């Protein structure tokens, strides 16, 4: 994960969002986001509702369907020795070249990818066939899938079930194992365990982490839950109002958050064994149809200076591998 290493995925200046009905404009959910994903890393994207984290991974995966629009920016993915620019591919090409084997995706709502009238085994067979394994018979496929299921600890009887017959946790495990079966280089997981019980969540996340490490792949974990990031991520990116405001090693971000938003967020979280009075943030995140000028956090920021209201700070490296978008960490010329 050293910064000298060449990234596996390069996200460059992505701008994307949603066309709002009634011609009320364009909601820029992701606003000039740049991020690198390295080999063998677990990177977390954290932030609260509406910060753009889910939109960002949807764009990274290339699952861009209206009302979602990619306005500008590029995403490059390393495949063997090639560097593929996936943002200009159409969906068919992405499906053939990228999905499942290079990038795979675990959505929050498993029912959005499971077909309710198909058995679980048919979902797996479909993936295998779509990935050029047409030569195998269904029987061979089922054997292969069953032994894969066993390997990752899913009961075999699940294969014959329909999605609705399974509990939410079991469905999420199925979707997770679908995302991993083609040994992708990077798994994008969007709130993969949100809404599940904590014990089930722990088990599923352990499964994912174990598989990722075993395959030597990388994981991008999108979650609003800072606790979950603390349990598994190597690095974190914190998003606020469509922007990445801070990137760094998880250990550094948790021990010494730099951005005032990150500081406030961490301060607001109650912890077991600690009754110290805490304060939450004031106000609300801005409307992204017409975001405030300058730093988007300035209306809520206790340290806001004049410049923060006018000019966007931009993400700047303040220590090796540590990026923050805040004038507090710039030279004196910005302070007044």
């Amino acid at each position, binding site marked *: 994960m050293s910064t000298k290493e060449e990234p596996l995925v390069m996200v460059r200046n992505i701008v994307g969002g949603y066309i709002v009905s009634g011609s009320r404009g364009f909601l820029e959910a992701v606003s000039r986001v740049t991020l690198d994903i390295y080999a063998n890393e677990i990177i977390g994207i954290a932030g609260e509702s509406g910060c753009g984290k889910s939109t960002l991974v949807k764009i990274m995966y290339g699952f861009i369907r209206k009302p979602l629009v990619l306005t500008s920016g590029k995403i490059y993915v390393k495949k063997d020795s090639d560097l593929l620019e996936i943002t200009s591919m159409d969906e068919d090409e992405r499906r053939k070249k990228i999905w499942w084997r290079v990038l795979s995706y675990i959505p929050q709502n498993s029912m959005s990818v499971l077909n309710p009238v198909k058995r679980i085994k048919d979902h797996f067979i479909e993936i295998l066939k779509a990935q050029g394994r047409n030569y195998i018979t269904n029987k061979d496929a089922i054997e292969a899938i069953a032994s894969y299921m066993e390997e990752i600890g899913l009961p075999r009887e699940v294969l014959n079930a329909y999605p609705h017959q399974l*509990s939410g946790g079991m469905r999420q495990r199925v979707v997770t194992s679908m995302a991993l079966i083609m040994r992708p280089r990077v798994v994008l997981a969007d709130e993969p365990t949100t809404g599940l019980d904590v014990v089930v969540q722990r088990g599923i996340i352990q499964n994912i982490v174990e598989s990722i490490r075993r395959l030597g792949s990388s994981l991008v974990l999108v979650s609003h839950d800072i606790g979950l990031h603390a349990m598994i991520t190597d690095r974190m990116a914190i998003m606020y109002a469509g922007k990445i405001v801070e990137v760094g090693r998880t250990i550094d971000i948790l021990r010494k958050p730099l951005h005032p938003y990150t500081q406030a967020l961490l301060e607001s979280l109650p*912890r077991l064994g600690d009754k110290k009075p805490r304060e939450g943030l004031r106000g609300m995140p801005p409307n992204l149809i017409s975001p405030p000028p300058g730093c988007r956090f300035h209306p809520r920021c206790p340290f806001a200076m004049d410049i923060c209201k006018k000019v966007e700070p931009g993400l700047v490296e303040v220590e090796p591998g540590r990026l923050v978008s805040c004038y507090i960490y710039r030279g004196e010329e910005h302070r007044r």
Partner: protein
Amino acid sequence: MKHEMLVDVRDVEKRFRYGVFFGFTFKALDGVSLYIENKPVIYTVAGESGSGKTTLARVILGMLKPERGYVLYRGRDIYRLSREEIRWFRKEVQAIFQNPYASFNPLRKVYSYLLDTALNLAGAHNKEEAQDIVARALEIVGLNLDDVINKTPSELSGGQLQRVAIARALIPKPRLIVADEPVSMLDASLRVNILNIFKEAKERMDVSFFYITHDLSTAYYISDIIAIMYRGWIIEKGPIEVVMEKPSHPYTQMLIESVPEPDLNKREKWLLRIKLGGIEEREFIEQGCKFRARCPFAFEKCSKEPPEFKLENGVTVRCWLYEDRYNKAPS
């Protein structure tokens, strides 16, 4: 002594039918007992989905009559109240739910709700008195009149509307507020603001809270007492510090250990491999301890239903490991 309790829930059983094909009934509440003392406390009921915690909240609110057992509110059986008493109960016990948008008519201005509540339930004699009462309630929840006047629910953020819901609940000067997952839809950075309002209402207005949640960190932050539910049973209850810092029941231990926290020191233990079960619903109809199939300490005795054991540290636990009260908690 019984009449001194604010709420006394005794051996309550509530069944639901489940399964399209099998027609089983299962006990969402299977012999639940607890009491809330008649002094301001925040009593948390925590559990995962399907544990029965929301059912318990609804039973205590008088919305769901149990098949067995009873619920006394200040000594009176809430399912046998006279018409007069029902009005009294509706004033004394208020509710806050998870989704504030579902608790308000989307077309009606929220301020008119608050005024009506002041007129109907807080004994305001005229509009001026009602306005005063509403202003005081808004102050406690940290809202200005300008924030809410002329606003419909959709014009407020989730956090603001939840504050309005709390203001409405406080207006009748209740003794008890039942809050079912009141912050789980809010962003983490705003949750603590709502929790602080509960603490303040408890301290300044002597309101008790029955806080239903799946989130142990927020429970720890505000509560005095906690009951942990598992599949219709209260498996452990006691003072929050004791239960959270020295959990007795193997399930409570597993639950606490599984909470992801923004604390890197917890990582190593959290990543210790746990085993996920298979098809889960079977446990509802099994005999004996309901946690047996998942319990790392299960032994022969667990095929019999464990009673409640009272421990010296003030905790009550349903687990055979504590049959001999000198047994130590498994570590």
